[in-house]
């Protein structure tokens, strides 16, 4: 949690301190503050992802460590591993939610001291989608690390999970809008739009979405495409459900083999 707060403070001091005339909506949307897609913005996306990657490394071993450590004593008393697993997933989601809330709240509070901030319509709605979508995503990615750790070991799990996130960030380059000579503007092709919508990292960037609320839509929707914020909520929820099924299967079927399967 200290990491979340520290990241929000440092991020603000280095990138936004001194900027004037900011609205609360812009501050929140700015957590995915990318208005176009090129190599520079991909780097910015990656930097924005870092605190969440840190979360998935720290909490990525949350279930795994208990599974391997005290798991023998827990499961020798338990006839239903699923209920244990679901309780752990619930705890993990709570941590994901609090972590995301801390980043957004600390960010807003620090900017009150360093910048001139005005409350704007749509802030609550935008904050809601930011917190829900991001917390679902980081919980799903932490579950992925836990499941991979149970199956292949912790080091492999962290490497695979980080690689997936980095590759997904890199793949966003194929979603970049192209310059249209006739319309004299950037236009996103159908293929690029689909690639954007299926990319989990793309689903995190609020600015690329659209919304039925006009004050929110004015702050985001920089590509002018139909990409409702709630569709990313559904996407992230589906991701979390898939990861829940994966880790339940791993915990149920994987033998309890502590650190070294050959000892004894």
């Amino acid at each position, binding site marked *: 949690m200290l990491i979340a707060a520290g990241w929000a403070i440092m991020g603000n001091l280095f990138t936004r301190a001194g900027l004037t005339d900011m609205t609360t909506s812009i501050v929140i949307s700015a957590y995915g503050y990318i208005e176009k897609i090129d190599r520079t913005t991909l780097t910015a996306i990656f930097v924005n992802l870092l605190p969440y990657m840190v979360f998935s490394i720290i909490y990525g071993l949350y279930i795994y460590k*208990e599974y391997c*450590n*005290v*798991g*023998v*004593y*827990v*499961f*020798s*008393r*338990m*006839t*239903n*591993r699923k209920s244990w697993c679901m309780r752990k997933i619930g705890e993990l989601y709570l941590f994901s939610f609090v972590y995301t809330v801390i980043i957004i709240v600390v960010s807003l509070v620090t900017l009150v001291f360093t910048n001139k901030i005005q409350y704007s319509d749509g802030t609550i709605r935008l904050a809601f989608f930011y917190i829900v979508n991001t917390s679902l995503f980081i919980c799903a990615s932490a579950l992925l690390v836990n499941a991979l750790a149970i199956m292949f070991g912790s080091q492999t799990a962290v490497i695979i999970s980080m690689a997936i996130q980095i590759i997904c960030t890199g793949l966003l380059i194929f979603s970049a809008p192209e310059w249209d000579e006739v319309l004299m503007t950037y236009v996103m092709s159908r293929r690029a739009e689909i690639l954007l919508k299926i990319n989990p990292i793309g689903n995190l960037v609020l600015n690329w979405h659209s919304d039925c609320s006009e004050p929110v839509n004015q702050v985001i929707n920089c590509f002018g495409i139909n990409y409702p914020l709630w569709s990313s909520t559904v996407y992230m929820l589906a991701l979390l459900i898939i990861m829940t099924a994966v880790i339940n299967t791993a915990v149920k*079927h994987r*033998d*309890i*083999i*502590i*650190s*070294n*399967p*050959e*000892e*004894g």
Partner: protein
Amino acid sequence: MKNTITVDGISKKIRNRTILDNISLTMESGNIYGFVGHNGSGKTMLFRAISGLMSVDSGSIRYNDLEIRKDVPVIPSLGMTLENAGMYSDFTGFKNLKILAGIKGNIDDEQIRAAIKRVGLDPDDKRTFRKYSLGMKQRLALAQAFMESPDVLMLDEPTNALDAEGIEQIRNIILEEKQRGAIVLIASHNKEDIGLLTDYVYSISDGQVSPERKDKTDE
């Protein structure tokens, strides 16, 4: 009622290496069964398989009329210690046992405290598990195995890291558990433990189990 564990021709391979090779055993209430063998012989793996914590490639394990991992995932009334298994490092011994006892909910705080005292630890010790010595960790692991008076006890190297007084104390508890009617399985390098405590001794080598004459281990 007499409880029985029947192991029928179980085999297990891990990464193409045979860990358990066609093992058959029958174990009954009120007896202590000792398993001896060198490191890597398969003692711990056998405990994991019999308990239900690890699957087997072939054969079956039955506890009375229940087939383990088919009718029930693990032996229903089981207390076990395994080498290298840990506890919640940031909690005290009492809190650790309270969490584990909460899974079944069949003992109260006083019984948990009694189990901790029984192995020679202080239930009011405020130190976290992380700060426990090796011997204290071993005693706490044994306390969690004994605390719910299970019908089956599987103890992997139960006297490891204990001082002479601790060894004596744990041996007495194991014998009390036998008197209570538990099926007790002990894996140990310690020939004295095996000689003093067990009724039947099995030797494990390359995943195969063979009965050993008791007097041979007493030597």
